[in-house]
């Protein structure tokens, strides 16, 4: 067992974990932050995407012990003071989700994308979310959702 101290959505969480516990399982099973989903076991699907020290990362590729001392933001930490993040708003406005399973990871990747490219072109959006699979939407409404958020932030 190893002791970790990880700041998740602004709160310091200390825990004893097996060294092999994935960050995704740590968030889901230990902290009950079940918004972070697991859709594959080879780090392709991106459903588990969170922000680690402000940058998007697939939490199934990281052991909890590797995240010791870092700042994690999950989808649960995105809305502030009861107000949705512009991307969350965009996904709702533009019907950017159906079953919702890929959505938290998709939104977290899009947060990273807009951090790097506040006014992305459509190819930049498609490239920026290429590490996240969605089987329901065909991505078009997701692209619209990201454009909505970018436009809103740009105003």
């Amino acid at each position, binding site marked *: 067992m190893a002791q970790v101290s990880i700041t998740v959505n602004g709160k310091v969480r200390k825990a004893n974990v097996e060294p092999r516990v994935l960050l995704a399982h740590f968030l889901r099973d230990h902290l009950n932050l*079940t918004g972070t989903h697991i*859709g594959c076991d080879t780090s*392709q699907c991106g459903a588990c995407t969170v922000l680690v020290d402000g940058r998007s990362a697939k939490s199934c590729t990281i052991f909890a012990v590797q995240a010791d001392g870092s700042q994690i933001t999950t989808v649960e930490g995105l809305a502030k003071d009861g107000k*949705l993040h512009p991307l969350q708003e965009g996904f709702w406005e533009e*019907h950017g*989700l*159906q079953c*919702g399973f890929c959505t938290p990871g998709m939104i977290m990747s899009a947060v990273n994308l807009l951090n790097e490219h506040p006014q992305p072109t459509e190819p930049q959006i498609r490239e920026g979310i290429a590490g996240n699979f969605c*089987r329901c939407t065909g991505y078009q*409404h997701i692209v619209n959702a990201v454009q909505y958020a970018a436009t809103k932030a740009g105003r």
Partner: protein
Amino acid sequence: MATPVLPKLVGQRVKRREDPRLIQGLGTYVDDIKVAGMQFLAFKRADVAHGRITSIDTSAAAAMDGVEAVFTGKQLAEFLAPMPIGTPFPSPEHRAVAVDKVCFVGEPVAVVVASDRYLARDAADAIVVTFDPLPAVVDPEQAMTGKPTIIHSAFANNLAVPLIPSGTGVAPDGSKMDDTAINKAFADAEVVISQRMVNHRLAPSAMEPRGVLAHYEPGRGTMTIWSSTQNPHILRTMIAAMNGLGQDQVRAIAPEVGGGFGAKINIYAEEYVAAAISKRLGLPIKWTEDRSEAFVATIHGRDIIGYVDIAARRDGKVLGLKLRLIADIGAYNMLLTAAIPTLTMLMANATYDIPAVRATLTEVFTNKTPTDAYRGAGRPEATYFVERGMDMLARELKMDPAELRRKNFIPKDKFPFATQMGAVYDSGDYAKALDKALEVANWKDLKAQRDKARAEGRLVGLGLAMYVEVCGIGPSASLPTGGWEHSQVTIERDGRISATTGASPHGQGNETTFAQMLADQFSVPFEHVTIHHGDTSVVKQGIGTFGSRSQAVGGTALFMAGTKTKAKMAKFAAAMLEASEEDLVFENGKIFVKGAPAKGKSFADVANFAYIPVPLPPGLEPGLSEEAFFEPSNNTYPFGCHISMLEIDRDTGEPKLLRLVAVDDAGHLINPLIVEGQIHGGLAQGIGQAMIEEVVYNSDGQLITGSFMDYALPRAIDFPRFELESTVTPTPVNPLGAKGVGEAGTLGSTPSIVSAAVDALSEFGVKHVDMMLRPEKLWRIIQAPRPGSGQGGAA
């Protein structure tokens, strides 16, 4: 004071009410649920495709600290019966966990129960199984020879279904066959197109893998089972039957379900095992599928070979169609496995008025994961075979593919139209959908663009396909579960509305569309309506969501239950207003005598009176809660036209989809925004099949595409922006006029894309290319020596 006027919501692009929880990570999927004392399952699975189990050593696993129990197939068979199927076809015994023989890679051979998911996996890995390997067969046409192996001894030549004939001259029960008409069609033909086509195997790949949590409570003698399923009521029926429980003693819950696409219709081995072990041990048991497991343990889709023959005159009139189908169903029959290819036969008539159609179907066992329903389920296969054949005919006759179709359409004044295959198409206007698609795509201009690109040496092609599908299947004679849906609409004491639906959604947005319908029906605010689903103890009866049925069948049941409830509410209001119920109107949250809104009663006042009726109006029972079962008299037949433009890189063979225009006619639409999303998703899966997705086995029956590293699930960069339009031809089958739209996108996309690829490759004399359009395959065509030139194509 002016009353605020409530907007009519049906037909509007209403934002989904499911979304706020899902975009904040607040949805609850099966794996998010915890029950105190919960144990985890892990399966040991076969790593050979065909073999006899010679030994299983579970001692190391059983000795691990935290391992509650280990069961081999033999031990499980003592308290778990073979898996049932839902079709009337003969079927070999199929154990949830293999007893003495395995027939595909991934078939379970033992199961571990442990206190932690990591530990369960460790223990499963510690089980040692030895096999006496048998030859494997993965090619269905080879399997039909009975060589090199027979998978199930009672099924000679591996024939699960030896041969079913259907169509012109065939008696409905298949007993008599008269070949006169079909033979005449081919004898009279001026041109015949013949082609073998493969509609290959796919992995459905819902983003949420399957999962189950079974909790048998010995004190109460009841079972609660949460599962990532499309149909909790069917799950309840099967789990009860397999565990010696009554349906009243089992509660099945489909919480948030992360996509299904047909693959979550089945009741799977893991669900039966979790329930049986929970009952055996009296412990809550959870299993969550890994993605690598999903590739072998969740059903696959399609995998059917079609031999297509079309007889026609030189003017383009089609005289006859023959379709010989060979379906590779994998190692076992699952719930609906054997029935899916019969839908391909049913839809062989496509959108055309063909004098003679003959289809035959053979289903074959191979050493692969079983197939079953995958989005489209039988209809995309029919569409693909017929539409590719029509495209080949157009090419042969040097006719515009649109004009060839137009020449053969079932005319709009011939509906309802009884096809040669025994279907009765409810309504249709195929020329209208075609015209709309040609207009949206700007077909003439598109052809000019293609020709210009070709003149520049680019390989650009166009493809067009029509489709008609069968949805909202009913009546009950055509569905083993019953072909109805159920709903209950309750006006609560405070005037808010609770409604239930058996059409349990998994991304379709029924909470929104159904609330739109009730808000309009009662003229109350949308926010005052809640739709409950997915829990058999809340939703009394139901079938589920599949076959694009939730709106056409479930929505109609909701509408009918609403109508009954509204009629009773009108009786209470009539008593309060001392008026005749026929004179009442429901408007803007009030009920009043027509023309006298000021003297009306609020919705909440009437609701309250219905629950505290002093005095009780004569002939009425207290309360406002009515239910309805709706069984359609016929299926619905949505249709449409898809047009693709595609370019192939001459140097690398890589195809790129430049445009995809889809015109779909699903009848009346409740929420066009949600419909758009459904079509986008269907298109994405069709494009995926045509261009990059393929399940591949090697000759030993090992799955080569066993993870997302090897199976190409489409990404955002793989698609152009889809261009959608619709036409509206309501169905007479239900009062909503809605046909269903969930699968439409998968139908026209594959043939239109492959036809575009063939068009792009036309300079190489190509007549047909099988999916998927692997660059290497296309590159070989481009590079192949051309007749007469003695040179490679890409000189």
